[in-house]
């Protein structure tokens, strides 16, 4: 089963939820945690994995064979991203703008363009005790997170309960992270910002046809509009975590709820049970 954890709004507690969930069910299941928040991956702070492998994520960028090139300029003409320019007797490439579409090398009338990998990030794997751990990281100064997210997702194991920690927002790296998951856990806080961004996230998972449930974090300050919205939209609230300075302090030290306040393990196990119920029901009704 693949469970994605998303939110819309940043800072609602996705990482705390995904790592606490992983830590709570690890004794009963083979768990894999994939950190797909590649611009700011934080799950490693909580699960403290020992990394075993690391490989580069690259985009294929053009490399021009000057001996064959006659500077006709066709490559510059077809490039939609200005990643290749031709002036006088020079062909200049701009790898950081390249999207790796391959048009320039395919369409070069002199077959003068080859492709070579240009690193944009890394994917690392390891183990945090019995939990399998995968983390993607976008290199600083790089602009496109989605290819790194995709490579993280390639390592999703169907032999495990895979938990995917996504980035905030609802744009394409988030779509790539939650795509093909069996269930999406949405984490939000009971405030106007939390509600506003939750609506965007709900619309997104609905469009993708993924069932979802809510984890209401920092309950206690704010208002009841998130709960009312969930009732109206039939979104089950699977867990409520109160605003609590102790919990905040645990988080600030990089400790999961499961570890710091072990009574919470039962709560997360219950969340998992409910997810299985909901996805089980869905499967049996199709």
């Amino acid at each position, binding site marked *: 089963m693949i469970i994605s954890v998303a939110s819309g709004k940043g800072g609602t507690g996705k990482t705390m939820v995904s790592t606490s969930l992983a830590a709570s069910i690890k004794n009963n299941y083979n768990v894999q945690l994939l950190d797909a928040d590649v611009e700011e991956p934080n799950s490693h702070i909580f699960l403290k994995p020992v990394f075993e492998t690391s490989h580069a994520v690259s*985009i294929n960028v053009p490399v021009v064979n000057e001996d064959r090139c006659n500077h006709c300029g066709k490559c510059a003409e077809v490039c939609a*991203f200005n990643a290749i*320019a031709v*002036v006088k007797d*020079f062909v*200049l490439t701009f790898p950081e703008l390249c999207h790796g579409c391959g048009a320039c090398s395919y369409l070069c009338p002199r077959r003068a363009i080859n492709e070579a990998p240009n690193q944009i990030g890394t994917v690392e794997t390891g183990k945090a005790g019995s939990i399998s751990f995968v983390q993607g990281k976008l290199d600083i100064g790089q602009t496109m*997170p989605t*290819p*790194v997210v995709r490579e993280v997702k390639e390592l999703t194991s169907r032999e495990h309960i895979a938990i995917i920690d996504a980035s905030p927002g609802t744009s394409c790296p988030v779509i790539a992270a939650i795509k093909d998951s069996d269930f999406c856990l949405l984490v939000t806080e009971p405030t106007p910002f939390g509600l506003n961004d939750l609506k965007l996230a709900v619309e997104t998972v609905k469009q993708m046809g993924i069932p979802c449930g809510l984890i209401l974090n920092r309950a206690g300050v704010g208002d009841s509009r998130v709960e009312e919205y969930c009732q109206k939209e039939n979104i089950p609230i699977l867990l409520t975590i109160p605003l609590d300075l102790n919990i905040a302090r645990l988080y600030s030290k990089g400790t999961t709820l499961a570890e710091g306040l072990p009574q919470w393990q039962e709560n997360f196990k219950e969340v998992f049970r409910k997810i299985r119920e909901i996805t089980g029901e869905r499967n049996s009704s199709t």
Partner: protein
Amino acid sequence: MKIAISASSPSLDSEVNPRFGRCDMFIIADPKSIDFEVVDNAGESAGGGAGISTAQMIAQKNVEVVITGNCGPNAHRVLSSAGIEIITGAEGTVRQVIEDYNNGKLSSSSGPNVSDHFGMGGGGGHCRGKGKAN
């Protein structure tokens, strides 16, 4: 010979546009006769690499000198490869700048005077990134 000056409006009284890659238009003038033509900058609305496409366009106009406010590293690279002299930090009207050029008051820059993404930023395309991972 011809010089290209980044501009905001189609006259010699236009203020020099502070950005090379994202300016609205260029005034391409013969500094001696002050004859000039106005050329639209189609690259202005590019998602990314505006400086690159603008520089290529200018290079095709047989211009020898570019005068502008700011020029980033990508545009600078393309213009230099085309053998075009680049003068940055220009201020005032196009007319004034041509006069300053003729009086030898302007000096060319040796490198870009702003870092990349200065003009607007915003990577092009959809940033879904490449297809097949490598």
